[in-house]
């Protein structure tokens, strides 16, 4: 029995399959409710955004990652710290634009898509679109306006899953009217 006790999981972790299938249930439900790939993409991104604005606090509280000096630092922290921490994977950062304001995250195995096959006729569905929302929401909370989108998706037959992030501008803190 003691061996079994030792195997009981870390309370900070959740079974990945439970997570994957739960996400699957959500996407399936959305497909049923909206019946339109683009609408589902939008809805997923919105949900991701809500997650992002909350997850960033957890991240800053736990990761201790310090300040990023440029967008390259940001990319590194996203892939090596944030993705590692929340999804247990480390995407490869690559395809930098010459100006250094745009890069791609290459996901070799995406935990959201285990067990998943896209049925025919859903070529515009970005199954993992929630990730875009999460990244956008989280970065917005630290004053970065970033455009995030899927360019390649393993589920659609591409060799790799690629998420593209483009830095748009620094957001200024909005000071409430009447305060200095």
């Amino acid at each position, binding site marked *: 029995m003691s061996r079994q006790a030792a195997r009981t999981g870390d309370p900070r*972790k*959740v079974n990945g399959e439970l997570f994957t299938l739960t996400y699957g*249930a959500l996407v399936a439900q959305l497909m049923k409710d909206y019946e339109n790939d683009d609408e589902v993409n939008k809805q997923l991104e919105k949900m991701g955004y809500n997650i992002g604005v909350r997850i960033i606090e957890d991240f800053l509280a736990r990761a201790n990652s310090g300040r990023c000096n440029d967008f390259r630092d940001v990319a590194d922290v996203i892939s090596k710290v944030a993705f590692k921490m*929340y999804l247990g994977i480390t995407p490869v950062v690559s395809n930098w634009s010459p100006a250094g304001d745009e890069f791609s995250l290459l996901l070799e195995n995406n935990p959201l898509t285990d067990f998943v*096959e896209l049925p025919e006729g859903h070529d515009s569905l970005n199954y993992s679109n929630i990730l875009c929302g999460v990244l956008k929401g989280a970065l917005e909370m630290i004053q970065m306006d970033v455009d995030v989108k899927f360019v390649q998706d393993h589920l659609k037959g591409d060799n790799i899953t690629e998420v593209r992030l483009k830095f748009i501008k620094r957001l200024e803190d909005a000071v409430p009217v009447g305060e200095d």
Partner: protein
Amino acid sequence: MASIGKQKASNLDKSLSKGKPEVNVATFALLFSEIVQYCQNRVYTVPELQSKLAEMGQHVGTHLLDVLFVREKGFKREIKLLSMLIFIKSNFWKTVYGREAEKLEQANDDERTYYIIEKEPLVNRFISVPKDKGSLNCAAFTAGMLEAVLNGANFPAKVTVHWHKGTCFMIKFDESVIARDKMIDSR
């Protein structure tokens, strides 16, 4: 398929992963929170919300069932009621939630009814129920999973969720299940 040009990999060509890839509990909690909010925006009452969550749970349960039997039991199905319940209490719970369920009990007055009791199920850990929705228990999601697993294993049952010593999943089996079990026993 060839006409599409790009070849999609079929899941059946891949071998089933052995491992237990794990994700951060915060990731799951935030996703679940979005699910609850989404469901809530589409219903009016607490029971409706719970049944919506249960529906999603069922989706998860049906998909988990096969994976579990293949991995934990080497393709063998459970045919006896009690062993199925124990399978759920230990194997199922351990795989999904990292530990065994706390209690499994049978109702004193009804041989069709069993209870699984958990003080604090994972899905409820980060949820504070608003005052005006006192009866809401988001573990309805887990109840849906249980129901799908039982139905999929051919033990037709209804699973409902209640607040009792924490969270109590009430499993009410179909008459036929009890009859069948007695038949197996008498052989």
